[in-house]
């Protein structure tokens, strides 16, 4: 999932406050000149029509051209066609291999790999997880997702490592790539789907390529980071021994960057899983498709049956790659080869045994039907908790109240604001905590949304994001503070956060539909749950890193715990809190967009509509607006430090 680079807390000098005031003053002067001009030229209110560019025609023509020429134009025959073929071929090869190994072989192989890299406990966990997938009747979809994942992860790692190598070795490449990779990490997964669909059509090739584009950046970032972070003295020593540049790279820099490389692999796998599931919207098949089908008919039980394997896969993959990274620090064991050979032989033996017994497919009788009891429970909940519960009201009532009292006024308020004032607010926010560069990017991104002609739906999405972020921050800061004060609470919380942080975004839609029905409120609820763990974690870390000396002196002056918190801890942890806000906003946006699948409306709905109706013009414009919105939100909440920090 998203990386969190906690910055060391720094004290905020009073000068900064001054500087902020200066910036605001300057902005006010600029506004005083420009606003009357803009107001006179184009009316206030929503974004003026005169300033929009209608892209529908050219985009529709492009999409038509592609469909008409896909089977004849050389570009497709000799270029995209081969890529598409290669992807299909690879996925198929892996899938056939998995099927040929049979359920017993796959489970055994997975457990044995886990045993070698991460120890017995994880091996047992892995075995149980795979068996659970089978028992839930999801063996074939799980294998389809796994096949897609294997290909996508391999491709992402190759692409990411190459880019990272380039950025790690050349300063110029680094300067070019870094902002792009940084930005790519804050964009919602949904925005990546449409451009690939345009070229490849709906299906597995498009899904794999979207996954690669989404999952390669963390690998590239961490590779570059690892190469740049190598110990200067070691490098000098190697150089003084007369090693060539290539020897230096292979014998010193890459081995020194092992930890970062493995962390990169871990993040790439997690992001690939998350994307492989979302890509079911463009025909990826597998587990995601089952969730998608079930969500379309609000069949919570079936969605859960497909969702649990996703979560299990995520947890297993995360733990095993994470453990591999930690084990790297240790000395390599003597006779390291033999256990691997043993593991390989054992896995093959199990696979062959399964084949001989004729039990390759998961036996149909070994099934645990959880859909029915879950649906019964959901029905009971809808009947009893949904509405009309005395005193507290039902969950649907809460959702309705949240929509009428929070979301509606917020949306109407934003849409009522004159367009130039929205730009001004964005500029003011971004500039006070960032540089003029970030402010300019933010304003331009917001203006681009207007130019694209999706001002109103974007503000609708923005209102959902703001509401969700507000709830997330209140809950997250409260939990974070509690966790920072009590070790026991933190210990209890940690495994929960671990699991929640590894789950793909798609899974969160399932329970909220059961609880809140369909609409904007469930989209917001899913976003809150998704973003909460990151916010809690960063807050806790930030508060715990506060200089103990400062706290001690406050205590000795007789400050109450509340005073300590308010006057020492929170101000000193300001950086971490700002980072928490930034992460919260980015994560919330990603899920609010997916909320289009459960009636969230606005931009997410436009993307779904574009895909559903083959109307790529609508979808692509919405996708571009999502990119702009993500860019704007990131810049507005981005503390200066993250940008100016070099190398780190």
């Amino acid at each position, binding site marked *: 999932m998203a990386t969190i680079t906690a910055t060391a807390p720094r004290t905020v000098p009073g000068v900064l406050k001054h500087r902020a005031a200066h910036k605001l003053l300057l902005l006010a002067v600029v506004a005083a000149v420009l606003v009357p001009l803009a107001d006179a030229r184009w009316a206030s209110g929503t974004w003026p029509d005169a300033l929009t560019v209608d892209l529908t025609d050219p985009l529709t023509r492009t999409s038509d051209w592609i469909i008409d020429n896909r089977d004849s134009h050389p570009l497709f025959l000799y270029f995209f066609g081969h890529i598409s073929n*290669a992807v*299909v071929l690879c996925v*198929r090869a892996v899938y056939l291999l998995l099927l040929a190994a049979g359920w017993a072989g796959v489970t055994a192989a997975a457990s044995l790999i886990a045993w070698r890299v991460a120890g017995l406990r994880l091996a047992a966990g892995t075995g149980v997880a795979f068996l659970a997938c089978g028992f839930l009747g999801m063996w074939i979809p799980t294998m389809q997702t796994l096949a897609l994942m294997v290909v996508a992860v391999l491709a992402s790692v190759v692409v990411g490592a190459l880019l990272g190598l380039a950025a790690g070795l050349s300063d110029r490449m680094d300067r070019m790539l870094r902002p792009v990779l940084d930005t790519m990490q804050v964009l919602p997964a949904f925005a990546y789907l449409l451009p690939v669909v345009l070229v490849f*059509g*709906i299906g597995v090739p498009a899904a794999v390529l979207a996954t690669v584009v989404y999952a390669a950046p963390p690998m590239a970032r961490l590779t570059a980071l690892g190469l740049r972070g190598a110990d200067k003295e070691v490098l000098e020593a190697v150089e003084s021994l007369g090693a060539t540049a290539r020897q230096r790279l292979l014998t010193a820099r890459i081995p020194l960057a092992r930890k970062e490389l493995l962390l990169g692999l871990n993040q790439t796998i997690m992001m690939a899983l998350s994307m492989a599931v979302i890509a079911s919207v463009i025909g990826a098949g597998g587990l995601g498709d089952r969730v998608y089908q079930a969500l379309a008919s609000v*069949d919570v039980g079936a969605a859960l049956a497909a969702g649990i394997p996703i979560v299990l896969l995520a947890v297993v993959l995360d733990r095993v790659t994470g453990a591999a990274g930690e084990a790297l620090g240790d000395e390599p064991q003597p006779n390291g080869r033999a256990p691997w050979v043993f593991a390989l032989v054992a896995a093959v033996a199990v696979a062959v045994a399964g084949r001989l017994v004729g039990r390759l497919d998961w036996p149909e009788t070994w099934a645990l039907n959880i859909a029915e009891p879950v649906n019964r429970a959901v029905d009971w909940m809808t009947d009893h908790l949904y509405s009309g519960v005395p005193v507290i009201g039902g969950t649907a009532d809460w959702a*309705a109240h949240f929509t009428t009292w929070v979301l509606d006024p917020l949306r109407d308020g934003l849409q009522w604001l004159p367009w130039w004032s929205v730009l001004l607010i964005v500029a003011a926010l971004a500039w006070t905590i960032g540089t003029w560069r970030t402010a300019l990017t933010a304003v331009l991104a917001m203006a681009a949304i207007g130019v694209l002609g999706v001002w109103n739906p974007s503000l609708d999405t923005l209102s959902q994001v703001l509401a969700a972020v507000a709830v997330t921050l209140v809950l997250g800061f409260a939990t974070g503070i509690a966790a920072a004060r009590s070790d026991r609470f933190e210990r209890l919380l940690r495994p929960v956060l671990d699991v929640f942080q590894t789950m793909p975004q798609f899974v969160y839609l399932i329970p909220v539909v059961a609880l809140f029905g369909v609409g904007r409120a469930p989209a917001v609820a899913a976003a809150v749950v998704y973003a909460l763990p990151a916010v809690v974690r960063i807050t806790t870390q930030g508060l715990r890193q506060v200089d103990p000396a400062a706290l001690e002196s406050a205590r000795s002056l007789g400050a109450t715990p509340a005073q300590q918190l308010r006057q020492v801890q929170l101000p000193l942890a300001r950086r971490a809190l700002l980072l928490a806000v930034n992460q919260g906003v980015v994560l919330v946006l990603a899920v609010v967009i997916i909320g289009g699948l459960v*009636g969230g*409306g606005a931009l997410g709905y436009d993307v779904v509509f574009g895909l559903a109706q*083959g109307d790529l013009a609508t979808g692509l414009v919405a996708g571009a607006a999502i990119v702009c919105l993500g860019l704007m939100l990131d810049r507005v909440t981005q503390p200066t430090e993250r940008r100016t920090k070099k190398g780190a």
Partner: protein
Amino acid sequence: MRIRIRTTALVAGASSLLLLTGCGAADMTKQASPFANAQGARTVTLSVQSWVGAQANVAVAQYLLEKELGYRVDTVQIDEVPAWDALSQGRVDALLEDWGHPEEEQRYVKDKKTIVNGGDLGVTGHIGWYVPTYFAKEHPDVTDWKNLNKYAEQMRTAESGGKGQLMDGSPSYVTNDKALVENLDLDYQVVFAGSEAAQITQIKQFAKEQKPFLTYWYEPQWLFKKVPMTEVKLPAYKEGCDADPEKVACAYPHTPLQKYLNADFAKDGGEAAALLKNFKWTTEDQNEVSLMIAEQKMAPEEAAKKWVDSHESTWKAWLS
């Protein structure tokens, strides 16, 4: 820059493949799903649309293909329009219920010849605007579109703002409602529930409280048995009156629903293609299965089994 990364990925993939295959042309419109025909099993890939009727078709077809003919069936959830494209590329083999897409038909069936018509499904579909019967009985004049504005006030909801709410379901369905509201000068706002399931939930909620509502709905649909609804008369449909999607001001037609098959599959698909071409049942049959899936929450497989067990004469004819 994202393009750069993609290009790098593409170049890497393409060059490695070129090494393998030589420099031949690769027709990406002739690619099956990578999951098809695994392990020598004969596989059919069926596209499922999100409404229950389509699920009923697929459930029964899948059951017969698997149990009677020994195929492995993959189902993929794709909406109609993308399903046409996937059908043309051979990524799915069949689309069992199409509600009329003249533009795609022209492109794929007549011009490119990558898709062939698989015959009637046997069910006639009709889209329209509906009000609940309990409301129509109290206010008989609501069933004429000219009087709809009178009732706009009563149809108002949180999502529709100051206008009446015309509820639409999934973004993927055939609809002219936005144009209709505008061209007929109605004081209504089209509100998309996001999915058919969401729309059904809403309709049931309204019916429970006996509230008035106006909704886009269609026949055949199992929900009519649960919530009786009456159609609102729109200006009569004439051939070609819906040609320009911007200027539509007439009702929806009655469409005999069609099946479409990938051209290669239709030619080489053997027993499976023959079964899917012969697949033809009645509105009652479809509703029976739909009701089992949607209302009794049966697994599609079980519902199909139940129908197949009790209608042997119908499906035996498809197998020949």
